[in-house]
């Protein structure tokens, strides 16, 4: 038997338990005109259906392509649309990763290097190393060197290898030169001697 409305299916828990206790099938009271079961839950059920309908309408407004207006098709179209979006996100993120990879690894970079030595000469800047003692195990150094690619990293590596730790560091590039000032100390609390450190730094700079 089919009914246009499903409200007659709503039975309260009290009514259900009463029916099961008595062990008999309770005769359902239908209104002759509407064929609706008069339930206490009727209003609640109506509100629930209205809420569901409004949410489906909202979903329909968000999804651009809706093939049919029935509930099942609205949900199905929404699922299809979400899957399309997920595919798009995946393909775009893959594209981005590829772009990043090519830009870092395979792209030929035109590294334009200014003739730093020429620049320094024009401005009268000379390479120098100055070392001053701050206290027993702390020195202050000032290094002026020609600016070359990778020179700073090689300097840092060399200092690290010789057990020199940089506490505060400042590097500025100007007129084709690196100006580096830093407080340094021995890694394991070793005392650094001024002249020895200065000679060491001079040798490092000549090597790099």
């Amino acid at each position: 038997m089919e009914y246009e409305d499903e409200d007659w299916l709503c039975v309260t828990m009290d009514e259900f338990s009463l029916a099961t206790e008595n062990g008999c099938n309770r005769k359902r009271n239908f209104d002759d005109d509407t064929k609706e079961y008069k339930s206490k839950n009727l209003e609640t059920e109506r509100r629930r259906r209205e809420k569901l309908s409004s949410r489906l309408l909202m979903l329909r407004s968000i999804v651009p392509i809706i093939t049919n207006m029935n509930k099942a098709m609205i949900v199905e179209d929404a699922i299809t649309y979400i899957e399309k979006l997920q595919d798009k996100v995946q393909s775009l993120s893959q594209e981005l990763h590829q772009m990043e990879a090519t830009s870092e690894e395979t792209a030929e970079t035109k590294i334009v290097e200014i003739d730093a030595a020429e620049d320094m000469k024009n401005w009268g800047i000379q390479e120098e190393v100055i070392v001053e003692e701050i206290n027993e195990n702390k020195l202050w150094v000032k290094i002026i060197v020609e600016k070359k690619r990778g020179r700073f990293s090689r300097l840092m590596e060399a200092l690290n290898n010789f057990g020199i730790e940089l506490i505060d560091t400042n590097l500025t590039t100007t007129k084709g030169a690196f100006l580096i000032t830093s407080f340094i100390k021995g890694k394991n609390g070793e005392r650094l001697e001024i002249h020895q450190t200065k000679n060491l730094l001079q040798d490092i700079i000549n090597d790099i």
Partner: protein
Amino acid sequence: MMRRRHEGEADEGDFSTLQEPDQYSENLRSSWIRRKSKDTEVDVRIVDNEVTIKLVQRKKIDCLVHVSHLLDQLNLDLQHVAGGHIGDFCSYLFNTKICEGSSLYASAIAHKLIQVMDTSFAAASLA
């Protein structure tokens, strides 16, 4: 107390264009990203061809050695460095320029920095 967001201030990971009509006739590429791991915090900002990197490392390892090597790998021309050790932390600010013809993203730089710092810290703790 919540800080009011200034007009034109970018959210984390926001990609936007900056334009100052008086100075620039064309739009500038601008991006900003912040990444965190257990021991490292990285903030990368790109405006046109200038990259500013702020790095805070929670453990004392030779930050400068590893970061300077990475900057060379990424073809970033070092302009300015400032920072040092503060207790058990080391904090540095790097100003660099993207070399002509090179193309870099803030996310890629931040990801690589985190990776380098974490692996070097793991290696240092094993040694």
